[in-house]
């Protein structure tokens, strides 16, 4: 008998009399729709990330990159669709910078040598201060937001949902997903949260009001 058949047979024998309860879904499937931007930004700040709320993304992004320093930033394909016209302004503000486009794909070492990465996102969650990337336009493959030490993420206000269930409903499991809540951190030493291990040590979030 193959391992597969053996395990399945053992399961069938073992689970025969097990209970099969109805699943009670009395929990909240929708959170409050009020103050989404305020709640989201407050909770991202709790993770010690920097957050800007603006109608003028171009200026804010240009300023953030200038503050960060360096001039080689990874800019995933489809980026211009993310902040709309503001994105174009940002791009021109970055005119003297080198945009690494991941086309052809950048190697892990190229990414390691970059000064940072700018992306959009698929969904953001107010209650938990989480950004979810789905490798869609303006986000690129997963390594792009992982290897560089600096990640600037643009969130359109309309992308913020209140709670985890609303985010799950909006996401497509067929795409590779990365949920990001603050910068890389560890609690491994005496259960103290310390920011900055292997992922980007600096996360900067720009929320665009429409």
């Amino acid at each position, binding site marked *: 008998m193959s*391992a597969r058949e053996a*395990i*399945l047979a*053992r*399961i*069938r*024998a*073992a*689970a025969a*009399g*097990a*209970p*099969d*309860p109805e*699943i*009670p*879904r*009395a*929990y*909240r*499937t929708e959170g409050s729709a009020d103050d989404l931007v305020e709640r989201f930004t407050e*909770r991202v700040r*709790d*993770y010690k990330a920097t957050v800007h709320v603006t109608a003028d993304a171009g200026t804010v992004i240009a300023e953030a990159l200038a503050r960060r320093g360096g001039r080689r930033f990874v800019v995933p394909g489809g980026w211009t669709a993310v902040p709309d016209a503001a994105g174009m302004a940002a791009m021109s503000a970055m005119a003297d910078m080198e945009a690494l486009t991941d086309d052809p794909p950048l190697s*892990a*070492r190229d990414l*390691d040598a970059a000064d940072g990465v700018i992306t959009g996102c698929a969904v953001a*969650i107010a209650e938990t*201060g*989480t950004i979810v990337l789905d490798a869609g336009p303006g986000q690129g*493959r*997963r*390594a792009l937001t*992982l290897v560089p030490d600096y990640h600037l993420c643009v969130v359109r206000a309309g992308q913020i949902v209140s709670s*985890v*269930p609303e985010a*799950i*409903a909006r996401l497509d*499991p*067929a795409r*590779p997903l*990365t*949920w990001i*809540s*603050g*910068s*890389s*951190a*560890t*609690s*491994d*030493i*005496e*259960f*103290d*949260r310390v920011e*900055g*291990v*292997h*992922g980007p040590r600096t996360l900067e979030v720009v929320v665009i009001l429409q």
Partner: protein
Amino acid sequence: MSTFLGMPTDRPFPANAAKAVRNAQLRVNLRKATGTIRARRATAVAELPDWQDLRSAGKAIKDHTLRHLDDYLIQLEEAVTARGGHVHWARDAAEANRIVAGLVKATGETEVVKVKSMVTQEISLNEALEREGIAAYETDLAELIVQLGDDWPSHILVPAIHRNRAEIREIFLRAMPDAPADLGDQPRELAEAARRHLRERFLRAKVGVSGANFMVAETGTLVVLESEGNGRMCLTLPETLISVVGIEKVVPTWRDLEVFMQLLPRSSTAERMNPYTSMWSGAVEGQDFHLVLLDNGRTSVLADQVGRQALRCIRCSACLNVCPVYERAGGHAYGSVYPGPIGAILTPQLRGMDTPLDRSLPYASTLCGACYEVCPVAIDIPSVLVDLRAKARHSRMERLGMAAAGWIFNRPSRLARAQRTASRLRRFVPRRLPGPGAAWTDTRDVPPIPPESFRDWWTRTHGGAR
């Protein structure tokens, strides 16, 4: 062959614990760490008004899945395969290790990077790979501390919780060749040293090995929650990814994640959300993806009416952090990669109760019930402990004593006679019992025997009326 759970000790829990409680440094480290996390978890949980509803849903989803585990595993296999992944099945640790070693060899590589995973520790994958000439590098900070310190994990979430910052600094200076000579003991500096130490290894890694927190049958999605980004490195940079996952980790639908993505982070690191979660379905971004589904004793646990609820566990470690026994004895005393309350019910079920150690684990508890209260999937650990105590083989003296007591209690006349005899001899009963009885009176006094039993007093006085 009994199921192997990756830690060598065969002394019973009380002997291990007696040794551990004499280690003052260990007690200080544990008290500080568990105290911090307990308070934080309570706050994180109190923030959600529907916590108990989420908990009921989590429990029911897991029970429903276990009842139909065969169907959901088949559905998962189909979904993963349809999306370009390969699924393998392993009955036990040896079979899983063989599969993984074979897959690594097929790539021609001799190095793998690993994300922290309980199940690969359970099967001692690193040692098995080493025997095949493959070096496995742990990349989680705590796992790295354990690996460099040639130590054993003592907690399921923070395996190096028994070490404080000064000890970690020493381990790094001793075993990490590229550690800066002036390394301090601030957690920030230690994390920075680990970042630099592992960066090069991540960038050249060709094979990654992981576990998973959840697998979704409907979509073939695997989910890994983590904090540091080492998980993302291992999951996304290598060309080949091998995930070894226990069969009980499957949940039926994509939607079910809305429950567990709330229950797990708040219960484990006490955060609203952990820094990073990766979700992928099948082979993505040009990767070669292999999923190894592991039984290793889980189907025997599933067969036990009371004990099967242990398979609901999502390894959050909340029960360890609230346990008064764990806080004092530490993780190593449990002699298994699964310590604490969940270990006390899972280890003897997975491994059987053939050794003194495994028979002693169900007693490694005061039955205070704190573990049940915090468990996000409502595992009634105290009830399982009591059930396992009844199932464990007891010593000959204990069995004789119980048989004698049973014979006396069985007839009121025998009990009355025994009580009268005891009253007459009460002056001769010592406060400390001799022989095997000493085990009982080492920690308690023998209760004083009254001059007259209640029954005799009642008969004599009609309840005090005469």
